[in-house]
């Protein structure tokens, strides 16, 4: 170790060989996470379409127990949350950490076995859900015989991330690393606590609901949100070639998120049998989330100002900017949903469903798509094969998700208003939601088209990489020579 490696000559300024080495070292593991994540996305999309169609055609495929709505919807949720979102997030985390720590990915077999374990655990879990073994706890439906596998896998990932951080060559931390390190520590803590208190040795009564929403809200806010923000903070400046508007704001955003988010979950229990102070503290903390959200929004917007013309050229930028804007909108909508008078109408309606998709899809998933558009050509050292498929992917997902969430939010609000009116029979309330539910199925098909286009493009890229013809594509990789040398050790 004492011997000077090429790295030590110019700390903080990676050169071509170093970048190529880092990207090449990430190739196998990141591809493993991305590809299995994409397969889960396709599976989750099919399940979502079935579940959505059943909401306005209840008899459809209702004969087999494992195809009933309760199981299909649950399987969809777990496939896209723990399958697609979590796996792609880990892939992005790997690459970002290596790039920002300026070290090649080490111990790939460890991280690869974590990926395999995660997928095995999840397949067992999803099959278990379809077989009727759901625990019935929202966001923790996976049966208890698969969750220890998932926990073990994630523990490996978290330990690995900290090891990479420990051996970093760049001393100073970028804000993305703060978010990533926090996320990989938060998630195992949340997951193990919720598993112990809700599945392994269930708490009883009101405590159960409290822990459930503490977990349900935090898994989105303290695991997926930080990873999404880490990507935005990295790729936005990177693509347009300009540093983030204010680094102060990003630090403020991180620490206020860390301080306030953990308290938010109980706002889902407004009106429930809980001590008033629990709900009130949660509402106050939810409103305080305006601080990090506005700080982040200002920071991203002022970084982008004057550079919007670049959206024309970069798929990454399109998805990332869409995700960043959605983060602001969905977070402010979330703040509104936490307030008592709003929650009384909007909760237990499709409004909540729309909000969840606003956050998980319009913000997180779009951000992950953007990150994959940047990372995949670099680790495979090949250009994206089809511009048409990229455009199709972007427009289908962007238009699709807007047409999904905006009308459904409004439909959910109408549903809540109707449910509060005792004069309106329940069946009438159901009818109010029907047009919005049908529109949702249509937008689901549009989203599915986008997903298939993206997957086809990835497969094509991989055929170019590993297939018979390997043509160098100099455009975005200008100057970076293909280098397949093993990681220097």
């Amino acid at each position, binding site marked *: 170790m004492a011997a000077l490696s090429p790295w030590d000559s110019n700390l903080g300024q*990676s050169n071509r060989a170093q*970048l190529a080495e880092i990207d090449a070292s990430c190739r196998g593991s990141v591809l493993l996470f991305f590809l299995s994540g994409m397969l889960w996305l396709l599976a989750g999309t099919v399940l979502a379409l079935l579940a959505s169609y059943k909401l306005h055609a209840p008899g459809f495929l209702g004969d087999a127990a494992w195809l009933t709505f309760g199981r299909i919807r649950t399987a969809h949720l777990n496939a896209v949350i723990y399958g697609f979102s979590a796996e792609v997030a880990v892939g992005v985390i790997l690459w970002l950490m290596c790039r920002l720590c300026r070290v090649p990915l080490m111990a790939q077999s460890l991280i690869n076995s974590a990926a395999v374990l995660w997928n095995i655990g999840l397949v067992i879990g999803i099959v278990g859900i379809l077989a009727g073994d759901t625990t019935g706890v929202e966001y923790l439906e996976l049966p208890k015989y698969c969750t220890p596998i998932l926990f073990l896998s994630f523990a490996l990932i978290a330990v690995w991330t900290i090891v990479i951080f420990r051996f970093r060559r760049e001393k100073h*931390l970028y804000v993305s690393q703060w978010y990533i390190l926090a996320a990989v520590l938060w998630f195992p803590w949340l997951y*193990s606590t919720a598993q112990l208190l809700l599945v392994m040795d269930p708490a009883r009564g009101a405590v159960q609901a409290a822990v459930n929403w503490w977990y349900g809200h935090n898994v989105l806010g303290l695991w997926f949100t930080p990873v999404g923000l880490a990507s935005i903070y990295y790729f936005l400046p990177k693509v347009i070639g300009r*540093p983030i508007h204010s680094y102060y704001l990003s630090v403020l955003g991180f620490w206020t998120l860390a301080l306030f988010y953990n308290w938010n979950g109980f706002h889902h229990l407004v009106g429930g049998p809980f001590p008033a102070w629990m709900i009130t503290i949660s509402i106050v903390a939810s409103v305080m989330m305006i601080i990090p959200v506005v700080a982040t929004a200002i920071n991203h917007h002022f970084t982008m100002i004057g550079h919007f013309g670049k959206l*024309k050229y970069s798929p990454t930028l399109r998805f990332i900017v869409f995700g960043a804007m959605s983060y602001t909108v969905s977070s402010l909508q979330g703040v509104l949903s936490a307030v008592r008078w709003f929650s009384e109408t909007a909760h237990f309606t499709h409004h909540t469903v729309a909000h969840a998709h606003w956050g998980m899809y319009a913000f997180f998933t779009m951000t992950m798509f953007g990150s994959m558009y940047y990372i995949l050509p670099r680790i495979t050292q090949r250009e994206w094969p089809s511009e048409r498929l990229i455009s199709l992917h972007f427009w289908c997902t962007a238009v699709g998700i807007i047409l999904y969430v905006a009308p459904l939010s409004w439909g959910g609000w109408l549903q809540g208003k109707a449910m509060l009116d005792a004069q309106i029979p329940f069946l009438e309330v159901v009818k109010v939601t029907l047009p919005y539910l049908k529109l949702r199925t249509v937008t689901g098909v549009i989203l599915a088209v986008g997903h298939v286009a993206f997957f086809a493009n990835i497969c094509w890229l991989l055929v170019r990489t590993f297939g018979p013809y390997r043509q160098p594509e100099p455009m975005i990789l200008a100057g970076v020579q293909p280098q397949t040398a093993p990681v220097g050790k």
Partner: protein
Amino acid sequence: MGIISFILIGSSLAFPAVALYALWWAGREGQLRHHDKAALLPFDQEEPLGQMTDVVLNRSSFPKQTLTNKA
């Protein structure tokens, strides 16, 4: 007081402790200073400041002089 209670209480005490340690560590290491330097960390010689990366779509209309990497 089963073993689970001890695990839960322990972890809920340990977690804020880790967070506080992280904040203290960041202060000691100077991570909360030199923000001008930190903001430049995503850039390097290969993908430097001032140059757009990831030009994939509509390449024909992209300004020529910025296309090639100076390295």
